[in-house]
């Protein structure tokens, strides 16, 4: 009798059951994998999308922060540069004054430090400056170009394969569309590349200009430094810092000097002294702006220094006119703080008849003078005066220029012991 052991008995005795299980499990896993993946994906997709969206939002915020920080930093640097420029300009304007040695050295060191900082700043700027990377766009461009070539090849292949059949047209259109898209992409890439190149060029220009500015600033600072180096005490010799005149010498040969002691006082050759004076309104009328005046140190008999009236102003407080005139510093012996004599001359017209003011009598608003006349009377030759009407053309403190029925031969009475009247007999003394 044959004993039936079931299906299991049909197996070869040497069959390895483990291998069978492994094979079947692997096959089952492979078959189930797409479905398991699909099921997992259905739960995970939305979460991944949200995660990606959140990441994008975070990146956006990060970019915004970086942009703000970048703008702030750039603004600060610009302001720092502006302040530094103003400081250098201010120092340049005030460096003309003579400073004591210590202060001078301090400022010199400060200037050198500033120069070093500028150099360092420039170096930092150069080292940190990076041109925009356009290799990415070039790579993209090349990829697009490759796509065009592939699309062209594909188009050619499709054209050859599908002759002129109706459905081929669709395929051709499809290929053509792909080609056109690729071409459009290439054009976009070219445009982007050009734009990036232009941007890079513009940034290069800005960079060059900035470097040029920085270099110029350094050159200026170096020039100033060199200029200051020139006036540094060298071997005990002090040299003049500018074209000037020695105003005072406070030390003599053989005397000992001490720090902070003033040895010489220099006056800029181009500087001027201002001479000021005041005149009452009457006299002030004779002197106007631009009129010639002469100055001389009071008590000295040296040559007159000529100048012009530079300013004329009425001071209501003093009730006088204030005049001012500038003369070159060092002119003659005039020094600051001295009192000077001022003389002014005014040229007027030529007059034929000038008589003393005392000769003129005024009666009823009419000016007249008495002219001496001769006549023969009972006692022989006698003198009398005749009143002649005149008009005063010009008058000063002592004399008057007149016109009237007078001649240069006429003798005009300038003084009398008694009041005169027309026809009165007089005696000469």
């Amino acid at each position, binding site marked *: 009798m044959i004993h039936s052991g079931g299906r299991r008995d049909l197996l070869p005795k040497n069959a390895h059951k483990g291998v069978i299980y492994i094979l079947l499990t692997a096959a089952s896993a492979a078959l189930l994998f797409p479905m398991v993946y699909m099921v997992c994906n259905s739960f995970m997709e939305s979460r991944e999308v949200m995660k990606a969206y959140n990441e994008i939002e975070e990146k956006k915020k990060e970019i915004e922060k970086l942009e703000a920080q970048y703008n702030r930093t750039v603004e600060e640097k610009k302001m720092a540069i502006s302040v530094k420029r103003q400081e250098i300009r201010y120092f340049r304007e005030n460096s003309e004054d003579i400073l004591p040695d210590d202060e001078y050295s301090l400022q010199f060191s400060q200037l050198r430090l500033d120069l070093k900082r500028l150099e360092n700043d420039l170096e930092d700027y150069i080292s940190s400056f990076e041109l925009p990377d356009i290799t990415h766009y070039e790579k993209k461009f090349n990829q697009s170009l490759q796509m065009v070539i592939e699309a062209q090849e594909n188009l050619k292949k499709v054209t050859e394969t599908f002759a002129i059949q109706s*459905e081929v047209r669709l395929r051709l259109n499809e290929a053509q569309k792909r080609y056109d898209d690729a071409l459009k992409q290439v054009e976009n890439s070219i445009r982007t590349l050009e734009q990036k190149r232009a941007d890079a060029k513009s940034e290069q220009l800005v960079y060059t200009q900035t470097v040029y500015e920085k270099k110029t600033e350094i050159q200026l600072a170096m020039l100033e430094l060199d200029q200051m180096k020139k006036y540094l005490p060298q071997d005990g010799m002090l040299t003049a810092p500018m074209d000037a005149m020695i105003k005072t010498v406070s030390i003599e040969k053989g005397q000992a000097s001490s720090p902070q002691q003033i040895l010489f006082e220099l006056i800029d050759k181009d500087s001027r002294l201002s001479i000021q004076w005041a005149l009452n309104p009457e006299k002030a009328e004779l002197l106007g702006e631009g009129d010639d005046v002469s100055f001389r140190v009071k008590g000295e008999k040296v040559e007159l220094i000529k100048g012009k009236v530079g300013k004329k102003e009425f001071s209501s407080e003093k009730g006088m006119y204030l005049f001012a005139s500038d003369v070159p510093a060092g002119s003659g012996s005039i020094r600051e703080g001295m009192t000077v004599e001022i003389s002014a001359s005014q040229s007027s017209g030529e007059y034929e008849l000038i008589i003393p003011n005392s000769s003129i009598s005024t009666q009823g608003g009419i000016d007249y003078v008495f002219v001496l006349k001769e006549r023969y009377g009972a006692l022989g030759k006698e003198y009398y005066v005749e009143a002649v009407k005149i008009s005063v053309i010009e008058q000063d403190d002592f004399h008057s220029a007149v016109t009237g029925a007078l001649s240069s031969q006429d003798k005009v009475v300038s003084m009398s012991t008694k009041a005169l009247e027309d026809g009165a007999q007089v005696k000469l003394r």
Partner: protein
Amino acid sequence: MGLKNFESLLRSESFLLAAKNTLIFNAIGVPLIMLLSLGFALLLNTGIKGLSFYRSCFILPLVVPVASVILVWQILFHEHGALSQLLQHFGLPAVDWINSKWSLAVLVLLYIWKNCGYNVVLFLAGLNSIPREYYESARIDGAGLWTCFTQITLPFITPTGFFVLVLSIINSLKVFRESYQLAGNYPDMHIYMLQNFMNNNFANLNYQRLSAAAFLIFVVIGLMVLVLFRFESRIGRDLE
């Protein structure tokens, strides 16, 4: 017109390409699925534990709509998909599997994944129908595993195999659905099948060419089935 439509059809390079691709796909896919199905059926028929679980695993791809699984295929075989990333991990270049010469392999894989389970079930049914006594007698007579397979299993399973073969061919001709969903109207030239050709002609309102192609395909498949029936009946006679 007469035979002009057929003449034009046979001169059409697109039709010839589609026919060639379909033949290649059949030549690769059908034997492969037959071998794999039979192999898995034999393994499942060894009386292992958990047979129903494994059988369910094999059946599941058949009941899942392809459209929903195509996404997984695209993720796996995209140029930047999982497989390409795996290659890149080992320093190899990324491959656009769906739009290159590899597309045929992807389609074959999809075809096997989808239809293998069904064939396994059919083969299992065929295997179960073989009387156990035959094996027992052969084992008593000293027959080995290979002898049992060639002398008992193979002859008895031939009708089932024939049925599976016909079904596999039919299924392989219906692979257009997967191809269309995977690569669209105009897939890579390696997976441009007859169904793509017919579908595109239908979309272009070229019914004459479509009818001619359909008729031609019908004739070819009819002839093929006829040959297979003849072959099967000859084997059946031999078994008797």
